[in-house]
């Protein structure tokens, strides 16, 4: 089993546990189940729990012809559980999803975001505006939801990704980094990190934490941050790096 499969499986089991209202440790015996089957099980459980709410959502959506959209969005938040809203968002065309997301409150949207399936929701998430993504990301960081946040930012536009990285506090960057999918967009976001944010990472993280971050992202990607270290601080950082053969990246 690859590390990626194991991480994906733990995330899916965590989602199932959240849906069932139990701790992840209470969902046992699923270690050998393929990730796609866990995703299907999650969808089936969501339908079993919230399928009836779908009709309620359709009725509320029908009110848009009679009421201002702001009132309709308010009603949706009051009557549609986030779990059902997440399934609706996954099924919407990206443009419609972006419009809906723009009208929801940040706190409700954060509750929905935690429940989104990263694969099925990717079209809608990638259509979210950078401002909206940053707002939700900061709420999720404040709640300590770093793995889920990584799923979210892995799916957003390159512009939104760069905005998130620039807005994140150093300790949130440290916590979310191990879960990020590295690709050209993330490389560009790190390379384009504003100088003051790179400086904040260098100043606020300890040498050991910087070394952990370097292991997560690769030391070469951390160059804009390391450039802010003086000779002594750099030596302390380097002393905490594991030998190259023991690094994950």
């Amino acid at each position, binding site marked *: 089993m690859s590390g990626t499969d194991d991480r994906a499986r733990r995330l899916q089991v965590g989602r199932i546990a959240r849906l069932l*209202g139990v701790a992840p440790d209470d969902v*046992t015996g699923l270690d050998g189940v393929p990730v796609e*089957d866990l995703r299907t099980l999650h969808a089936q459980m969501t339908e079993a729990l919230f399928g009836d709410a779908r009709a309620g959502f359709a*009725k509320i959506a029908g009110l848009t012809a009679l009421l201002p959209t702001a009132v309709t969005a308010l009603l949706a938040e009051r009557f549609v559980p986030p779990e059902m809203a997440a399934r609706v968002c996954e099924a919407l065309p990206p443009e419609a999803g972006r419009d809906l997301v723009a009208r929801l409150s940040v706190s409700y949207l954060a509750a929905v975001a935690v429940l989104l399936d990263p694969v099925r929701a990717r079209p809608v998430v990638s259509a979210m505006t950078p401002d909206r993504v940053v707002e939700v990301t900061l709420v999720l960081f404040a709640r300590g939801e770093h793995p889920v946040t990584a799923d979210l930012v892995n799916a957003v536009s390159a512009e939104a990704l760069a905005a998130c990285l620039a807005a994140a506090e150093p300790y949130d960057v440290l916590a979310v980094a191990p879960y990020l999918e590295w690709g050209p967009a993330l490389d560009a976001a790190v390379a384009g990190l504003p100088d003051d944010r790179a400086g904040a990472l260098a100043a606020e993280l300890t040498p050991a934490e910087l070394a952990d971050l370097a292991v997560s992202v690769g030391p070469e990607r951390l160059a804009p941050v390391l450039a802010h270290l003086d000779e002594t601080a750099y030596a302390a950082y380097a002393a905490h790096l594991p030998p190259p053969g023991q690094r994950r990246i």
Partner: protein
Amino acid sequence: MSQHPRPSGDPLTRALGAGPPPGVASLPDDVRDRLADQLTRRRETLLAEGRAATDHALRHVPLPVRGLVRRTLS
């Protein structure tokens, strides 16, 4: 992993309203039964919470549209 038969009386199938995916259907009975029990209890809890939340939420809907909303949701 051995394939378990999926009888029509399988509690997880009943709770889901459909047969689970193959990787779940082949799990031991005790694992499937525990999932079914967790799902059934969650549904009961949510139904109770939903009724209370709707009653509470309707009190926050502006009075001029409260009747319309109540009729729409009923």
